[in-house]
């Protein structure tokens, strides 16, 4: 099964800066990768899906890259806001009908 590494330390940045979060995986390259946001005590909320043949995906202030050679995905939030403070989860396919989640990186955006 996949092993996913996300930086377990919290990321603290100033409002307006770009936040960059990293997701590394160790086994086979998945056909797709997803990013979710999770607030305390709440369920994950889907943000973006990127497939193995896509290098980059954007949605408003969010950008995801997927490098199958490095076995890494980067998740960027530009012009960050305090409301972006949350835990961000990387998730990879594990079989056709399951996701394996990373432990998440907590982002704190300071006003």
């Amino acid at each position: 099964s996949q092993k996913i590494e996300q930086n377990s330390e919290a990321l603290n940045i100033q409002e307006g800066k770009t936040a960059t979060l990293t997701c590394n995986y160790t086994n086979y390259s998945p056909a797709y990768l997803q990013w979710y946001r999770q607030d305390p005590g709440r369920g994950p909320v889907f943000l973006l899906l990127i497939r193995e043949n896509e290098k980059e995906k954007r949605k408003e202030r969010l950008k995801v890259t997927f490098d199958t050679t490095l076995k890494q995905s980067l998740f960027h939030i530009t012009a960050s806001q305090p409301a972006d403070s949350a835990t961000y989860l990387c998730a990879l396919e594990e079989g056709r009908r399951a996701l394996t989640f990373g432990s998440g990186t907590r982002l704190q955006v300071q006003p």
Partner: protein
Amino acid sequence: EPEVTQTPSHQVTQMGQEVILRCVPISNHLYFYWYRQILGQKVEFLVSFYNNEISEKSEIFDDQFSVERPDGSNFTLKIRSTKLEDSAMYFCASSERGHENTEAFFGQGTRLTVV
């Protein structure tokens, strides 16, 4: 906006008791999932369900667990004889197509506490 609803939001049960966690997926979705998250740990896959049968399950989903879609709207997770280590947040999710094609919508979870 359509959403996945879960009940109850919090359930406390005695060890050895049976619990049923309930979920109402989004109405036009065809794929249903249960995940769990032990406090401070990762979200873990339990089971996926499509076309009225289990399509995948994890090692966690042993004989103590079962899922059912008793009618056209509900999707339930039953734990037959709860153990202390079953204490976790249980999330139901649904999607229009499989994870490989589209986003999954997660419910707000049921916090299960086994005492």
